[in-house]
């Protein structure tokens, strides 16, 4: 339903051109969930903004974002505006800032409903109560009169999800939906998203830096590094047999519950490369423990592994059973 084809985002900065997203191809079908994983600054959020056409004014986008057969990048502003909210919706990272602090929850929900679905006041109010109940908010009628600061972080994120779901979108983008929340709430919010997705048969993109979030809740995972997709696979396959050293390093960096106390975390040393000065070779090369000569001169391309669904970009893939082609 959504397919991102060869999308690049360039941001002019005082220090030179910053390539935030570098030739990314992705697609999500209806009822499917795609996870996009990567560390801070790897272009995850820019990619989501590119899909929604909410990039900063100076940013330059190339490639195509096809949604239901229309290229969003070339859609007239008015048609795009109608599409947003109705068909595309987002849940942001920080529910503290994604709700308007001076309007009540009810006002924010009801106005969205009235705007897009053209419901009258009473119908919109009824629908708001249903939506709040659906996202697991107790006493929804009283909540309508409350302001965002009167709710806890988890509640606020539920409200943000209710607003995003209010117009039955076909695609929901969740941009780090649980990063700002307590660990105990994280699972609840993710389960809520998964439940609503199944019920509404919508496509969903979960953006996160936590491989633990995508495991078990997504159909497919794309790992991003320095603006590029470096590995893409159906979720079970990725966790069983990852080929890209970066994916391995990301997984190793998750704290293990059964590790002895004071075990140092195998953090990924160093920092991602300066995006204004791209490397000639593989972007992960300086931090990669498998790197060899070829990694320095050439950028690896995304190539299929055993199955066509599983793609990776690496010259020294790990966990390869077949002989490495010379």
């Amino acid at each position: 339903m959504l397919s991102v084809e060869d999308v690049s985002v360039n941001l002019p900065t005082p220090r030179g051109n910053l390539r935030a997203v570098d030739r990314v191809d992705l697609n999500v079908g209806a009822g499917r969930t795609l996870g996009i994983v990567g560390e801070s600054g790897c272009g995850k959020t820019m990619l989501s903004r590119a899909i929604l056409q909410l990039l900063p004014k100076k940013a330059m986008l190339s490639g195509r974002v096809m949604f239901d057969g229309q290229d969003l990048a070339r859609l007239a502003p008015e048609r795009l505006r109608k599409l947003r909210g109705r068909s595309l919706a987002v849940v942001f990272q920080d529910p503290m800032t994604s709700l308007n602090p001076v309007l009540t929850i009810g006002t924010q929900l009801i106005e969205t409903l009235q705007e897009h679905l053209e419901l009258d006041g009473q119908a919109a109010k009824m629908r708001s109560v249903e939506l709040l109940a659906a996202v697991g908010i107790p006493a929804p009628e009283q909540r309508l009169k409350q302001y965002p600061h009167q709710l806890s972080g988890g509640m606020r994120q539920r409200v943000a999800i209710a607003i995003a779901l209010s117009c039955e979108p076909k695609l929901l983008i969740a941009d780090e939906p649980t990063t700002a929340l307590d660990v105990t709430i994280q699972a609840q919010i993710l389960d809520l998203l998964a439940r609503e997705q199944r019920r509404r048969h919508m496509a969903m993109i979960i953006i996160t830096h936590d491989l633990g979030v995508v495991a078990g809740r997504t159909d497919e995972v794309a790992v991003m590094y320095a603006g590029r997709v470096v590995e893409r696979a159906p979720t079970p396959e990725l966790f069983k047999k990852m080929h890209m050293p970066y994916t391995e390093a990301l997984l190793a960096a998750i704290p293990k519950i059964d590790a002895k106390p004071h075990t140092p975390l195998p953090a990924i040393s160093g920092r991602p490369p300066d995006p204004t000065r791209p490397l000639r070779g593989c972007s992960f090369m300086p931090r990669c423990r498998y790197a060899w000569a070829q990694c320095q001169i050439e950028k690896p391309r995304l190539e299929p592994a055993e199955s066509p669904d599983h793609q990776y970009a690496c010259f020294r893939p790990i966990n390869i059973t077949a002989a490495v082609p010379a």
Partner: protein
Amino acid sequence: MATLELGIEGDVVVSPVRRTRRLGPLFWAAIVWMVAVVAASAFADLLPLPSPTDMDMLERRAPASALHWLGTDGLGRDELARLIHGARVSLIVGVCAPVIGITIGGALGILAGYFRGRFETLVVGSMDVLLAFPPLVFALAVTAYLGQSILNLTCILGVLGIPAFMRVARAATLSLARREFVIAAQALGATHARILLRELLPNVILPLFAFFLLGVAVTIVVEGALSFLGLGVPPPTASWGGMIGEGRESLEIAPRLAFLPAFAMFLTVLSFNLVGDTLRALTDPRQGAL
């Protein structure tokens, strides 16, 4: 054995916690004074007061008496009546001029802070020009050309107040426009007009209103200064600044003629400042980590 009672009794009714904020006696005293001044000047014609312009040459600078509660001025006019009628001018100019400022300046500031770009440069630039222009020369030029009247005075002070309101509105908008709820509104397909009116304006109006009250206080003082200089309302009409100016001539004989209007102005300005400050402090606290 003690048992732990879990409160699972269906829907727990959540009542919003109403915090009674302590505002202090000073705030209420200020409110009382403001209400008294506003009421007195609004109903000045209904009050059993002598005319503020009728002169009584036999009763010049008379001390307080049953007939003239606060005595009479240098031309034998009732001081209390002039004070109350003078409050009218001060309040009309003091409130209407900032209304002009908050409307035009606020609108320009929100638009400039939201749209940025060339429009912002133009607005900020023209406001800088207005700020750099000496206000007194501007007031002189306008009154010389269009004449002295309450309307002209209000317009002059209103226009002079626009840059300050524009800056407050723009600064507030700049910090708000980058917040996620504005992007969230865009992602929900909101139009520019909707974002400006429903998302940004309710947020910006709070600091703007607090600044408005301070603007009222400043404008009352400036109006007094202009009247004192003879640029305010033309003579027979009473105004606080004009009364201070007239009282200056008899400062040695009857100092109360200058001090009474000055004191009234002082209390009024202080009240507006106090209320404005308290409201600003109430609306300021980050609004729940906003």
